[in-house]
């Protein structure tokens, strides 16, 4: 049987919005690609850039960070602070030579089951186009 | 027996050696930066004018080295040692200072009670082709440390750069295996004379300027001296001097694991790191840079002599050249000697 490569995408979803959005997608029977593996975090501001880098080092093909829309943060400003970290990290690693699109960000509210599905579709497609992650992945010795 | 090797034959010579041996030599990794590495192609071997930043100890005691692999089979864990050295090796182009340092490491890794097979196996499998240091730097002080730019100690074969050729001296039984090498020619009287003068020049340049006489006893009295506060002030606590030191040999042991398989690895470690001696409880017997700096110097000039009868510094000058804060161990030695 021929194995078709499918990207592995790690998604950090904030507890209050995006995770609930994913839940809604599920209960509403909205389909999305099975390529994502979800880690629930309290807030998108909780994302330590080390999480993203460690995931890439361990060989995931893409990372998605998703939180509440601006103004909706359960902790008022967590997503705003997170947004700054996201912007600088993304620019930095792409500057160093990681492909644009390996690390992606989205705002998905608890009511946006459809958007969640759409985001996952898009991210999966884009990561598929990039192909399997090679740079920065730790090879087992 | 004295032979010579024309430089035009040098790459063929290396290729020839590589048929039967793993060849380790200085490799340039950036402009002006070199390390000892296993060579895959003769052209990789760097010019020998630069004493590599990382010393030759790395050939026998790699910065990161797997000690064994383990894997879980049911409840049992199978352990496979990686101590064996499969192919014979050559270390080419090491300077006398680095080789003297290797002889100090021999004392540690051979040890009276325990031998370290990872080091010893590599050491035994290796023929050392040393290289005379014809252009020593002003930071070199090997001659003060019982060595010299042309010390043949611990080389099996010794090369002297004559410009167009290398003079080849075969020094040991191990070295004799190479006498018949097709690229070696007989050296002429003229070559010998040229080599002598090169050696003399270099040796004159590195005078025995430092006195180490009695330093061990001096330091015995200095454990609690305010001297250490002064020495440590400039030190930023990085590990440059210990990692680039050809005699430093501290290491850490750690497991690297992926699911049920993994390996136990040893990595260089440094007494200047605060975590080096910190216990799990958080207690640290060497809590500040003062104790750590003292440990480094005491180890070289007091503890090592007490245990082995030799000073653990060979005068290569690397710590002087590469210290980010420009600490100079020669000045430190002088200060200790002043008392």
């Amino acid at each position, binding site marked *: 049987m021929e194995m078709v490569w499918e990207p592995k995408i790690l998604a950090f979803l904030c507890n209050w919005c995006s995770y609930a959005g994913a839940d809604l997608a599920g209960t509403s029977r909205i389909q999305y690609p099975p390529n994502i593996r979800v880690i629930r975090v309290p807030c998108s501001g909780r994302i330590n850039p080390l999480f993203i880098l460690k995931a890439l080092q361990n060989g995931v093909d893409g990372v998605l960070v998703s939180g509440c829309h601006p103004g909706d943060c359960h902790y008022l400003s967590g997503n705003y602070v997170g947004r700054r970290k996201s912007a600088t990290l993304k620019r930095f690693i792409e500057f160093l030579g990681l492909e644009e699109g390996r690390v992606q960000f989205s705002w998905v509210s608890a009511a946006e089951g459809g958007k969640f599905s759409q985001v996952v579709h898009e991210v999966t497609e884009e990561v598929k186009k990039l192909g399997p992650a090679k740079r920065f992945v730790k090879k087992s010795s | 027996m004295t032979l010579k090797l024309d430089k035009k034959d040098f790459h063929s010579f290396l290729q020839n050696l590589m048929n039967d041996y793993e060849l380790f030599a200085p490799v340039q990794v950036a402009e002006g930066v070199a390390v000892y590495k296993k060579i895959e192609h003769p052209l990789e071997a760097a010019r020998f004018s630069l004493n590599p930043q990382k010393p030759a100890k790395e050939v026998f005691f790699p910065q990161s080295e797997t*000690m*064994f692999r*383990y894997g*879980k089979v049911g*409840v*049992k*864990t199978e*352990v496979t*040692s990686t*101590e064996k050295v499969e192919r014979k090796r050559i270390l080419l182009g090491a300077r006398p200072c680095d080789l003297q340092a290797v002889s100090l490491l021999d004392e*540690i*890794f051979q*040890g009276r*009670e*325990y*031998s*370290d*097979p*990872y080091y*010893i*196996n590599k050491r035994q499998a290796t023929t050392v082709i040393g290289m005379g240091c014809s252009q020593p730097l002003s930071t070199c002080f090997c001659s003060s440390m019982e060595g010299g730019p042309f010390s043949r100690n611990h080389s099996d074969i010794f090369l002297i750069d004559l410009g167009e050729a290398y003079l080849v001296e075969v020094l040991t039984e191990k070295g004799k295996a190479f006498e018949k090498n097709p690229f070696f020619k007989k050296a002429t009287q003229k070559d010998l004379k040229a080599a002598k003068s090169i050696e003399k020049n270099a040796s004159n340049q590195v005078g025995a300027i430092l006195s180490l006489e009695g330093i061990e006893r001096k330091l015995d009295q200095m*454990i*609690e001296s305010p001297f250490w506060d002064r020495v440590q002030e400039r030190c930023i606590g990085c590990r440059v001097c210990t990692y680039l030191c050809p005699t430093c*040999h*501290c*290491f*850490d*042991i*750690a*497991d690297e*694991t992926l699911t049920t398989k*993994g390996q*136990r690895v*040893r990595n260089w*470690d440094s*007494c200047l790191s605060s975590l*080096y*001696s*910190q*216990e*799990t*409880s958080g207690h640290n*017997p*060497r809590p500040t840079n003062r*104790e750590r700096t003292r*440990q480094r110097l*005491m*180890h070289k000039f*007091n*503890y*090592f002599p*007490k*245990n082995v009868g030799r000073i653990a510094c060979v005068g290569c000058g690397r710590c002087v050249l590469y210290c980010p804060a420009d600490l100079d161990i020669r000045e430190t030695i002088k200060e200790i000697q002043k008392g």
Partner: protein
Amino acid sequence: MKNPYLPIPMMVKKAFMETTDRMLRTLELTFQKEEDQKAFEFIPGQFCELSSFGKGEAPFGIASSPTENGSLKFTINRAGMVTTTLHHIEEGEEVGIRGPLGNGYPIDLFKGHNLLVVGGGFAFTTLRSLIAYFLEPEHRSLIREITVLYGARMPGLLLYKEELQEWSKRDDMKVVVTVDVGDQGWKGTVGLVPNVLKEVAPSSEDTYAVVCGPPIMIRFTLPQLKALQFPDERIYTSLERRMKCGVGKCGRCNIGHLYVCKDGPVFSLEQLNILPKEG
């Protein structure tokens, strides 16, 4: 050449919690290969490196006596990564061990003399090995009087409780067990080890003292021993340091020119006096 870094496999025969705070767990390990068991000869006071594959190694004093053949006991204080895994390991599972390492107590020196053992907290492990060694019928005559003073913060934190009771019933040794703070069921001595030592006031005449415990206990116990006129060369202690290789190569555990792993961990106070005070 024997590779001193390779662990040998041992099986966890028994594992149980020693103390009520659930921080100290004892593992009884049995050899898996006969040749390993044969090659493993040790004296009380030596230690082993226990491997939890994937997490690493940590050193532990051997708590069993060489006379208890066929198995080794270790009591493990949960502190870091390795010890936490060793707290979760189950009976029937395997661990790797390296050893015996270190010098051990100077058994021969003690022979024909009296022995005073002063211990505190979980440092009692190798002291237990030492006591058990001399309590073995064929060894008992090797030394004269045995006095044991052992203390813990609370009764629940005492190690080897059943054994302590057995010992206190014997008439060929003196056992004093003390706690810093007693509880309802506690009928024994209450008081800090150094103070109790002062009260018990064992004779220093022809006696070797072995002291192991937390640094603070050691610090206050030594003056008491001195007051009882124990000379420095007859006071022994076992030191702890961060260790990795256990065979005197990797650095880090040295005090002066001596390595705690290889030249120690047992030192006399006389030896320690001339070493740099790095504690």
